[in-house]
């Protein structure tokens, strides 16, 4: 075998390829070359017809079709995520066959017809599937959408040929089962595909109120024109990779990059594991960043990474709380190293100085702060009804479909433009400016389309740090995208927990006391609590809460939608269900009777009344009692609360023109939760203008300030600001009208002439005093002040400090499940959600957000578990084949009911709901499983094997 260079073994090699027709390349040339052997390193010319256009490219035989379409032909509508054929984001049609382009070699598309998302519509007319996705709001972040549309079009075409009418749901689900959606649009996707096949107009799930705009950026997402950070390949960009720790716990003795720096194509190297004051950080998790290398091609960067020599001294690895707590266990952070520990920022605990360390254990933090309430346990023990249960929840990774990616581009003025898949454009810009000691005005961050985040894309991450440092060092654009394995390993995770809970109650269901001890495994980090919800959810007479963290050799946790609460609810709400079952009491009535907050009671009643399931809420193991019954049905309930965080200093800017168009701008982010649509909905409704005349610009740090997209802070901040800006624009329009027409008076809907004729706002733009009128409005304070006003300083959000409003967001969820007694399979049939987030600022996207949270909650309850090898700390679940998330075939119907009452405190009446909606789901599912089987499921994920064990199968 002749030695051939390995130059072309990575997709990065194709960056060098030209998208223009190549000289001398003829169609079928690869076919001719085929007679002999083909060196894997030698690019060969291929021709393919992409969406009707003949295209030529030179590709290495190992290059995938996905890479060729995106990087050589510029067709970035085709997304890549898992790179292993499991997520379907890269789905395209080759000669009319649906394939995963990430596992299809480009040479196998030679001479063939390839259809991508860019070729689905006809001119400007959307394909019926695209239109149906838009009409049903069958998407959120949109990153999976091109692949979803390609699969749906494939099914639609085949269905049309042979069938009439609407396909059954299970037929659609089977056809779409090769595509994963992490945001949770599955029910709407099924509805969209079904409607398109039946040639009926798709509609959003549930009842749609009179004023509800379609997703404002939906068209860009269903057509593949939405440009995500992952789609940015600036000219002359360098590609960066990390050298990472391969073993879970080791002292780094030396890092030698001299060999790597001399490798071909290498332009810059930065150390990531240096310790302030000299030496190196200890490697405490697999994937920890040690060195970052930028080279002309990704493949060169990879090869250089292989040439870095890292000398280490291995230490013992502990991957589970049990192993880390053992006597003699390796200690991750000896006293001298405690400053190295990262805060997962998963939940406010107690100040660090109050929290003692003992080996790998930090804490406990007790609540009320610093006390241990010895009475609580006595009260539980003295109670006539008691529940004492122990729970354990597994680590859940975020796994947004768009991997972590940063592209840092040096600007002419010595600053940086940073394209980042981030939930926090402004915070990130500040943090980068801080680190580089640059003037904040010189760092701009862009994240216009974000392919999911769920918490893991907040703030500064190692990828940002490496990319900006390398860009400054090399004075060249630098692109750093995580590989999928790394994305699932270090991309972010929700801590695992171990909890014990004791509840005491009266026979009538009145809750007396709680003792809740929680332990969180944040990997090599601290700062999580699994008891935060227990503090405020019920009014107990006596409360004892203690919470500690245990550090293990896993990647550090970071905030995951409703940090701490889903695990907390999994325990607390099952304990309350246990009490309800023991008392023979309707679990929703029990909660209503224990509730003192009027709006909470109303929400619980709304769930109960609208579910149609109230007669089954009392059942426990009704079907299971009959040994002939194989399918056991159960209905379970859980409730939740979340805070109304808000940013009073948030601003929205409107620019109106005489042609009737408005541009709204705010530095928020839209990861699919619907921020653009919230702004558009508020502006359009307030001014009576058509959505097509309104553009909404978000995802740029230079825009008027807004908070990061986390903690359900956005809607309660940007909706009031947008409303106030729209009112200010009304003022300007009225001034123009008053000047142009002498005899008008102002009304809510426009200007009224003395004869009583209304000219609506939308018709007054022609009278504006200038062609362009700009207004900017502050969100300002709540009507009646805040529960906790913004702090004068705030480490997490410096220039948009946030307040805690007096409102609370509440919800109840009712899950209906079927458990196969024989095989242990659990199918969630339906989930009913009632939720109070005040006035719903964007009804269509809000409903989608709730449905998505429920999907993620079911996934958490039934499937998700990150597994680490106990000896090395390596992630055994670093693909979508090994890390299971809910698929479309597992997705139930979801009914969402919003409490029709605006918040009394928020200026616009709207609160955020992203966190609240995910909290109760896993607990409701677990309670439903208990109600079906009579067996309490105390660990996640609730796999079929757990059911078999509980049912005593042999």
């Amino acid at each position: 075998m002749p030695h051939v260079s390995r130059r072309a073994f990575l997709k990065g090699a194709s960056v060098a390829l030209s998208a223009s027709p190549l000289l001398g390349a003829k169609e079928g040339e690869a076919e001719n070359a085929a007679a002999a052997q083909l060196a894997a390193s030698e690019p060969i010319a291929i021709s393919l017809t992409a969406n009707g256009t003949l295209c030529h490219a030179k590709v290495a035989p190992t290059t995938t079709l996905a890479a060729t379409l995106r990087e050589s032909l510029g067709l970035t509508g085709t997304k890549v995520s898992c790179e292993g054929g499991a997520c379907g984001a890269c789905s395209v049609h080759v000669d009319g066959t649906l394939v995963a382009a990430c596992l299809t070699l480009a040479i196998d598309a030679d001479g063939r017809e390839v259809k991508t998302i860019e070729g689905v519509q006809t001119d400007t007319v959307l394909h019926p599937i695209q239109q149906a996705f838009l009409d049903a709001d069958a998407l959120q972040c949109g990153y999976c959408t091109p692949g979803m549309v390609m699969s749906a079009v494939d099914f639609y075409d085949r269905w049309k040929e042979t069938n009439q009418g609407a396909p059954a749901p299970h037929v659609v689900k089977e056809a779409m089962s090769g595509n994963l959606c992490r945001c949770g649009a599955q029910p709407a996707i099924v509805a969209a595909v079904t409607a398109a096949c039946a040639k009926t107009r798709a509609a959003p799930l549930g009842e749609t109120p009179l004023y509800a705009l379609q997703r404002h950026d939906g068209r860009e997402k269903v057509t593949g024109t939405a440009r995500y950070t992952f789609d940015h390949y600036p000219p002359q960009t360098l590609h960066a990779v990390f050298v990472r720790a391969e073993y879970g716990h080791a002292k780094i003795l030396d890092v030698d990059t001299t060999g790597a720096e001399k490798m071909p194509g290498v332009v810059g190297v930065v150390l990531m594991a240096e310790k302030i004051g000299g030496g190196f950080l200890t490697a405490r998790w697999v994937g920890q960043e040690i060195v970052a290398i930028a080279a002309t091609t990704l493949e060169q960067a990879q090869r250089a990474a292989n040439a870095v020599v890292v000398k280490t001294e291995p230490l013992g690895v502990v991957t589970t709380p049990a192993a880390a707590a053992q006597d003699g266990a390796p200690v991750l952070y000896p006293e001298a190293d405690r400053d190295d520990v990262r805060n997962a920022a998963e939940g406010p605990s107690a100040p660090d100085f109050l929290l003692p360390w003992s080996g790998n254990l930090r804490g406990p933090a007790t609540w009320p702060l610093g006390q241990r309430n010895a009475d609580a346990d006595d009260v539980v023990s003295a109670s006539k009804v008691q529940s004492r249960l122990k729970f354990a929840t597994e680590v859940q990774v975020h796994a947004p479909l768009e991997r972590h990616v940063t592209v840092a581009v040096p600007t002419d003025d010595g600053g940086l433009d940073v394209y980042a898949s981030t939930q926090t454009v402004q915070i990130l810009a500040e943090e980068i400016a801080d680190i580089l000691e640059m003037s904040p005005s010189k760092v701009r961050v862009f994240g216009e389309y974000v392919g999911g985040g769920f918490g893991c894309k907040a703030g500064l991450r190692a990828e940002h740090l490496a990319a900006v440092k390398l860009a400054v060092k090399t004075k060249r654009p630098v692109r750093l995208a995580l590989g999928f394995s790394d994305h699932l390993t270090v991309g972010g995770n929700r801590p695992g927990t171990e909890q014990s809970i004791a509840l005491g109650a009266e026979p009538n269901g009145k809750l007396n006391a709680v003792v809740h001890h929680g332990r969180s495994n944040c990997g090599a980090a601290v700062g999580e609590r699994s008891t935060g919800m227990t503090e405020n959810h019920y009014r107990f007479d006596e409360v004892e809460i203690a919470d500690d963290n245990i550090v293990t050799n896993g990647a550090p946790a970071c905030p995951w939608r409703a940090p701490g609460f889903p695990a907390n609810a999994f325990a607390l709400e099952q304990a309350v269900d246990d009490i309800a079952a023991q008392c023979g009491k309707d679990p929703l009535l029990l909660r209503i009777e224990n509730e003192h907050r009027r709006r909470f009671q109303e929400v619980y009643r709304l769930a109960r009344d609208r579910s149609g399931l109230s007669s089954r809420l009392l059942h426990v193991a009704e079907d299971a009692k009959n040994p002939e019954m194989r399918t056991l049905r159960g209905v379970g309930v859980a409730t939740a609360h979340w805070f109304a965080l808000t940013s009073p200093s948030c601003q929205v800017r409107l620019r109106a023109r005489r042609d009737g168009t408005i541009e709204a701008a705010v530095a928020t982010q839209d990861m699919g939760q619907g921020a653009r649509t919230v702004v558009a909905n508020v502006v359009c409704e307030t001014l009576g203008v058509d959505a097509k005349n309104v553009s909404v610009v978000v995802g740029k740090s230079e825009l008027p300030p807004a908070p990061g997209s986390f903690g359900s802070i956005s809607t309660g901040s940007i909706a009031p600001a947008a409303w106030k800006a729209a009112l200010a624009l009304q003022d300007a329009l009225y001034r123009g009208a008053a000047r142009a027409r002498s005899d008008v008076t102002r009304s809510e809907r426009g200007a009224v002439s003395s004869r009583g004729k209304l000219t609506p706002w939308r018709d007054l733009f022609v009278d504006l005093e200038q062609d362009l009128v700009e207004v900017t409005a502050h969100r300002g304070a709540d009507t009646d002040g805040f529960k906790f006003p913004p702090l004068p300083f705030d480490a997490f959000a410096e220039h948009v400090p946030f307040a805690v409003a007096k409102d609370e967001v509440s919800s109840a969820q009712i899950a209906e499940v079927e458990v196969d007694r024989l095989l242990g399979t659990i199918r969630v049939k339906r989930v009913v959600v009632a939720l109070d987030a005040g006035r719903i600022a964007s009804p269509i996207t809000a409903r989608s957000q709730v449905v998505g949270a429920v999907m993620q909650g079911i996934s958490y309850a039934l499937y998700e578990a990150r597994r680490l090898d106990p000896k090395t700390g390596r992630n055994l679940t670093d693909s979508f084949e090994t890390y299971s998330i809910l698929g479309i075939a597992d997705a139930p119907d979801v009914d969402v009911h919003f409490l029709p009452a605006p918040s009394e405190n928020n200026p616009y009446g709207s609160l955020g709901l992203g966190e609240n909606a995910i909290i109760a789901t896993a607990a409701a599912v677990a309670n439903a499983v208990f109600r079906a089987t009579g067996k309490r499921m105390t660990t996640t994920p609730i796999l079929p094997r757990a059911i078999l064990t509980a049912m005593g199968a042999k």
Partner: protein
Amino acid sequence: MTSPHTPTSFAFPSTIEQALLQKSTASEFLAGGTDVVARLKAHHPSTKEVLVHLRNLSGLNAIVSEEGHIRVGAKTTLTAVAHDASLLAQAAAFSEAARHTATPQIRNRATVAGALFQRPRCDYFRDVTFHCAKEGGSQCFAKDGDHSRHAIFDTQTCSAPHPSSIATALLALDASVVIATVDAEQKATSKTVPLDAVLTVDPKDPTTENALSDAALVTHVVIPVRNTTSAQIYRRASARERADWADVEVSIVLGMVSSVVSDARIFLGAVGRVPVRASLTERALVGQTLGTRTIRRAAALATNGAKPLPQNQWKVAMTHALVEDALTALLDRRIDEVTP
């Protein structure tokens, strides 16, 4: 850092002879690519120097009914298998197993031979940093680590379960494979070998995955068509409804004379290094009329000889449950009964 493993060349033979002449221990066949390309992209140590791309081989993707059997080309996609009318009529377990494999996108590319002879999906084997016994290393890391989804039969040296769903069905259907090799004159010759003689491993040799030689190409699968009444079924247990690897899977073919089981072939998947024949279950059924009690008794014998590892004891109960489920489905619905 591990050094990357990557092919140095591709070959595109247009005849079986050419394909076989390219084949050695340093090369691997590539057809649908759903396994080979995934390993290639991961720079997995199993990636061979030469990839022998079979796209120019013609005549290997047809499903043909012939006297007494159905002949399925090795390059036939799983999608074609799942929808073919003759297979659905005569070998429904095969079609069902194909339909439950992976995703539509994968089934559109994955081939019958590729699905039969894909490399195992063991987490440790797939992680490039573990040099496991299967790759010539000294230990099975799963046994000392996480083996919660691993095999419960014959795990002395390797505990990677066989990943192929269609293998269980083809074994239950008593299928054979046509294997082409080249003789001394470099002429291709072929022989037909029962699949159960090919899907065997040496329990003491963790590197074996089947009995195919390095210089052999499977060109067809041949499924006998019975001239007596039979019933067949493929079933799987998995947490998710679709697009999941099976926790346990089973294929059953029963010969039926009136309502009495005359013969039985039952193969379990995801529990052994190759599909495991449930011989005692078969014996407990032959000569019996299917009934609840017979089914339970037979199902409980399915794991005879299993030695589960500490974390996968659950697979024993799951296997019993699944065999009971499959036999009950045959009883309840006379599923896929084939009458010639």
